[in-house]
């Protein structure tokens, strides 16, 4: 009887799992829309074509470094520096990827390799925050739902922004750079509200990042602050807690 019951619990189909993942991702999907539009608007105003704006969102798919690339292109930086800065800024995904896939070893490698492209700060934060809800052996389909939903909205929003970019007044587009940070705050604050010690981890690494940024480039400061700031969690978090 008990085994039958367990079987039943795991009998969700892949398409049910996919929709479940998509539903879980709604906060990030909706949160991405204004940010992606902001990116599209700023990209066109920086001088990128519709094609290049869309290509960047589809292939690079990393909000912070895309905004940074626009900044660098705007001040006339050459290609290699942009590529190096992008790499340094996104090395943090290496650590997130280790964290994510340490729980997903039951998923075939080729699916993991596809899912890996979906790792962003926001989708990763969401996927880790929902870990309890996803169970011990979540299917690849549920993550595909989370990641493809966020990715799809990122690309669609970029397209919308790039289309309207030339008619958005400067005064408004100047204010759109805050969108990315508002999303970060919108993900972090509810987590702190639920478990206050998370606030110490975030504040600690924010402080470290500020100190590092006085001596290092922005990308390196973020990488080092993330690695060392998260060590605070070793003392702060309890074993059974998320």
């Amino acid at each position: 009887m008990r085994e039958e019951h367990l079987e039943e619990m795991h009998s969700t189909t892949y398409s049910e799992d996919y929709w479940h993942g998509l539903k879980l991702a709604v906060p990030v999907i909706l949160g991405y829309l204004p940010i992606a539009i902001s990116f599209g608007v700023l990209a066109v105003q920086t001088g990128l074509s519709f094609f290049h704006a869309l290509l960047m969102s589809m292939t690079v798919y990393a909000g912070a470094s895309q905004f940074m690339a626009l900044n660098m292109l705007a001040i006339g930086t050459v290609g290699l520096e942009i590529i190096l800065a992008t790499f340094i800024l996104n090395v943090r995904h290496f650590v997130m990827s280790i964290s994510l896939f340490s729980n997903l070893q039951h998923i075939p490698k080729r699916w993991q390799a596809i899912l890996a492209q979906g790792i962003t700060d926001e989708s990763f934060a969401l996927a880790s925050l929902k870990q309890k809800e996803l169970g011990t052996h979540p299917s690849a389909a549920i993550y595909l739902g989370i990641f493809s939903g966020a990715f799809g909205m990122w690309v669609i929003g970029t397209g919308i922004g790039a289309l309207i970019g030339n008619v958005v007044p400067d005064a408004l587009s100047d204010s759109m750079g805050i969108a990315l940070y508002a999303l970060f705050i919108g993900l972090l604050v509810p987590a702190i509200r639920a478990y206050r010690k998370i606030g110490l981890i975030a504040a600690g690494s924010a402080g470290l990042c500020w100190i590092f940024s006085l001596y290092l480039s922005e990308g390196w400061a973020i990488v080092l602050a993330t690695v060392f700031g998260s060590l605070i969690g070793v003392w702060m978090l309890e074993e059974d807690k998320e």
Partner: protein
Amino acid sequence: MTLTLIIIAMALVTYLPRVLPVFIMDHLQFPGWVNKWLKAIPYAALGALIVPGIFTVEPGAPVVGVIGGLVAAVIAYFRGHIMIVIIAAIAAAFIIQRF
């Protein structure tokens, strides 16, 4: 270097750190403290991404980012929808720049 090539190179160096762990951590088993470390990473990353970057949202006017961020934090604290959080922050930054 054309912009297309720059973007493709950016895509490669972004995908590499994302996908590498898939192939290198086959038989890795982490002790408890490492698991706690990994669990703390998303929060640490969010903290590091917000500060000091938010001060440079509007170059030369850190107050724009700070007030926009505070508006976002207050709305998020009172369980405002994430889209409201973002649009309110953009609106706040827009209004401050008018003064």
